C-alpha cells in the first residue's frame, strides 16, 4: 500500500489499536462480571448478601455454602444425572448419525430418499411443539423418570447426520474399491477406514451436543418426577422457593456455579473443535 504519510498512518493505527483493546476490555469485563458476581455471592454468608451493595470480593463461606447445598439438594446426584444425559445424548447422536449417514452414502436402497427426508424434517420439530404427545409416548413405554426416557427422545440428529454425510462424500472412491479388493465388507470399511478419519468431526459434534444435552430444561422437567432423576439445570429452579420465604441467594449461586462450570470448561478446553463443530453443524 502506498501512503504519503506513513508515520501518521502508523500512529493512527496504534491509536485505534488502543481503542480496540479498551473496547474489548470493557466488553470482557461486562461479560465476565455476572459470572464473577455469582461466584462472589456463592462465597458469602446470607448477612453479607443482604447488604446492598455486596462486597465484590470473595468471602470465607465458600466451603460451608457448597457443602450445605450439596447435601440439601443432593447435588452429587444432580450432577451425575446431567453428566449421564449429556454424555449419552452426545455420544448417542454421534453413533446413530454415523450409521445412518453411512447407509445413505454407501448403499443404494429403496426408501433412501424418504428416510433422509424424514431425518431432515426433525429440524422443524423442536421439543416445545410436541410436548404433550412426546410425553405420552414416553409414558406408554413406561420410561417416565428413567434415563431411557430422558435420553432416547433427544438422540435423533439431522445436523449430525448431514455433517457425516458431507464428510463421507469427500472420501475418495478409491478407498472403497481398495477395501473391496481386500475383500473387506461394509462394516469393516466403516470401522477401519471411515471411523479413524472422522475424529475431528466427532470431537466437534461432541462439544456442541454435550452442551445441548447438559443444558436441556423443558424435556428433563417433564420426563422426570422424582428428585433422584432430576438434572442440575432443572434443579436450580427448586432452590428458589416461590412462596414468601426469601431464597438463600448464596446457595442458589453455588448451584448456578456448579451447573455452569462443566459445560463452560468443555467449551474452553475444546474451543477449536467447538468453533468447527458449530459452523459445520449449522451449514
Amino acid at each position, binding site marked *: 500500500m502506498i501512503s504519503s504519510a506513513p508515520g501518521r498512518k502508523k500512529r493512527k493505527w496504534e491509536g485505534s489499536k488502543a481503542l480496540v483493546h479498551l473496547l474489548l476490555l470493557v466488553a470482557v469485563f461486562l461479560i465476565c462480571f455476572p459470572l464473577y458476581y455469582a461466584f462472589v455471592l456463592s462465597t458469602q454468608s446470607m448477612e453479607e448478601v443482604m447488604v446492598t451493595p455486596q462486597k465484590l470480593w470473595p468471602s470465607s463461606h465458600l466451603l460451608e455454602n457448597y457443602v450445605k447445598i450439596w447435601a440439601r439438594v443432593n447435588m452429587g446426584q444432580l450432577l451425575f444425572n446431567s453428566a449421564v444425559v449429556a454424555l449419552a445424548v452426545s455420544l448417542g447422536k454421534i453413533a446413530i448419525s454415523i450409521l*445412518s449417514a453411512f447407509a445413505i452414502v454407501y*448403499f443404494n436402497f429403496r426408501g433412501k430418499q424418504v428416510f433422509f427426508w*424424514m431425518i431432515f424434517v426433525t429440524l422443524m420439530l423442536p421439543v416445545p411443539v410436541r410436548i404433550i404427545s412426546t410425553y405420552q409416548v414416553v409414558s406408554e413405554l413406561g420410561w417416565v423418570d428413567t434415563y431411557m426416557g430422558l435420553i432416547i427422545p433427544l438422540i435423533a440428529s439431522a445436523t449430525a447426520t448431514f455433517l457425516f454425510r458431507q464428510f463421507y462424500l469427500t472420501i475418495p472412491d478409491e478407498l472403497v474399491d481398495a477395501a473391496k479388493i481386500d475383500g473387506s465388507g461394509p462394516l469393516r470399511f466403516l470401522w477401519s477406514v471411515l471411523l479413524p478419519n472422522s475424529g475431528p468431526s466427532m470431537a466437534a459434534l461432541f462439544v456442541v451436543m454435550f452442551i445441548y444435552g447438559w443444558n436441556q430444561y423443558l424435556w428433563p422437567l417433564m420426563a422426570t418426577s422424582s428428585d433422584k432423576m432430576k438434572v442440575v439445570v432443572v434443579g436450580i*429452579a427448586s432452590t428458589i422457593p416461590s412462596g414468601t420465604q426469601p431464597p438463600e441467594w448464596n446457595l442458589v449461586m453455588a448451584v448456578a456455579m456448579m451447573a455452569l462450570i462443566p459445560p463452560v470448561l468443555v467449551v474452553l478446553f475444546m474451543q477449536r473443535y467447538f468453533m468447527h463443530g458449530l459452523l459445520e453443524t449449522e451449514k
Partner: protein
Amino acid sequence: MKKSNFKNPVLPYLLVAPQLVVVVLFFFWPAFDSLRLSVFTVSPFGDRMIFVGLDNFVNLLTSPEYYRSVYHSFLFSLGVTFSCLSVSLLLAVLVNQKIRGLAFYRSAILWTFGVAPPISGVIWLFIFHPTYGILSYLLARVTSLEFNWLLQEWVALVLVIFAASYAHLGYNVAFFLAALQNIPGTVVEAARVDGASGLRLFRSITFPLLSPVTFFLFIMNMVFSFFETFGIIHAVTQGGPGDATTIMVYKAYVDGFVHMRMGLSAAQSVILMALVIFLTVLQFRYTEKKVSYS
C-alpha cells in the same frame, strides 16, 4: 451418492433403523398426535376425549390472552435477536483485529456458549433484584426511576431479554467471527486503497459481505428465543408479572401441564409448529443450505 458402493439387501435398513425408530416414535408420531389432539377436548371429568373440531383454534384466536402471549413472544424474540446480534457483531469485529491477546479475548467471550439459559436467568435475576441486585443499586444512585421487575412489566421483559441474550452471545460471536475470517483480505485491501476506512469500510464493504450470515443468525436467534428459552421463563419469572413474560411456548406448557387442557395446548403446539416450519423454510430458501436429495 458415491459411484462406488456396497451391495447388501438388509444391512442399509439395519443401519438407518436406530435413527428412524427414534424419529418416528418421538418426532413424527407426537407431531401427528398433536395435530389430532388439537381437535379434541378433555371431558370435565378428565375421563374421555370429545371431538370439538376447530373449537380449540377458535378459542385461541378469539382470546385476547393468547394474542398477548403472541405479542410478548415477538417483543421478547425481536428484543433478544436485535440486542444480541448487534452486540455480537461488534464483538466479532473487535476480536477479528490484528492485536495482541486475541486468544484471551476470544475465550473470554466464547465461554458464554456453555451457559444454560435458565442458569443465566437466575444470575440476571439477582443482578436485577429490586432490593439486593447490583444493577438496581447502581440505577437507584443515578436515577429516581423505579426499577422493579416484580412490579413493572417492561423491566421483567428486559430481564429475560438480558438473560437470553447473555446465554446466546457466544454462539453469535462464533458465527460472525467465522464469517469475518472468510472475507478475503484482498477485498478489504482494495477498499482501503480506494480510501475507505473505519466505519465507512465496515458499512460499505464488510457489512454487505456479512449479510448471508446475518440473515442466517436472525432466523436462528428467532428460533432460539421462541423455542429454547422456556427454562428462563419457567425458572425466573413464571410468565409474570401478570403475563408480561408469558411467551407462547410457556403458555402452551402451562395450559397443557398445569391446567391439564390438552386440546388447547395441542392447538398451540400446532401453531408453534407452523411458525418453526415457516422460519426453517425461510432460512433454507435464502441461505441455499447445502442439502440435496441425491
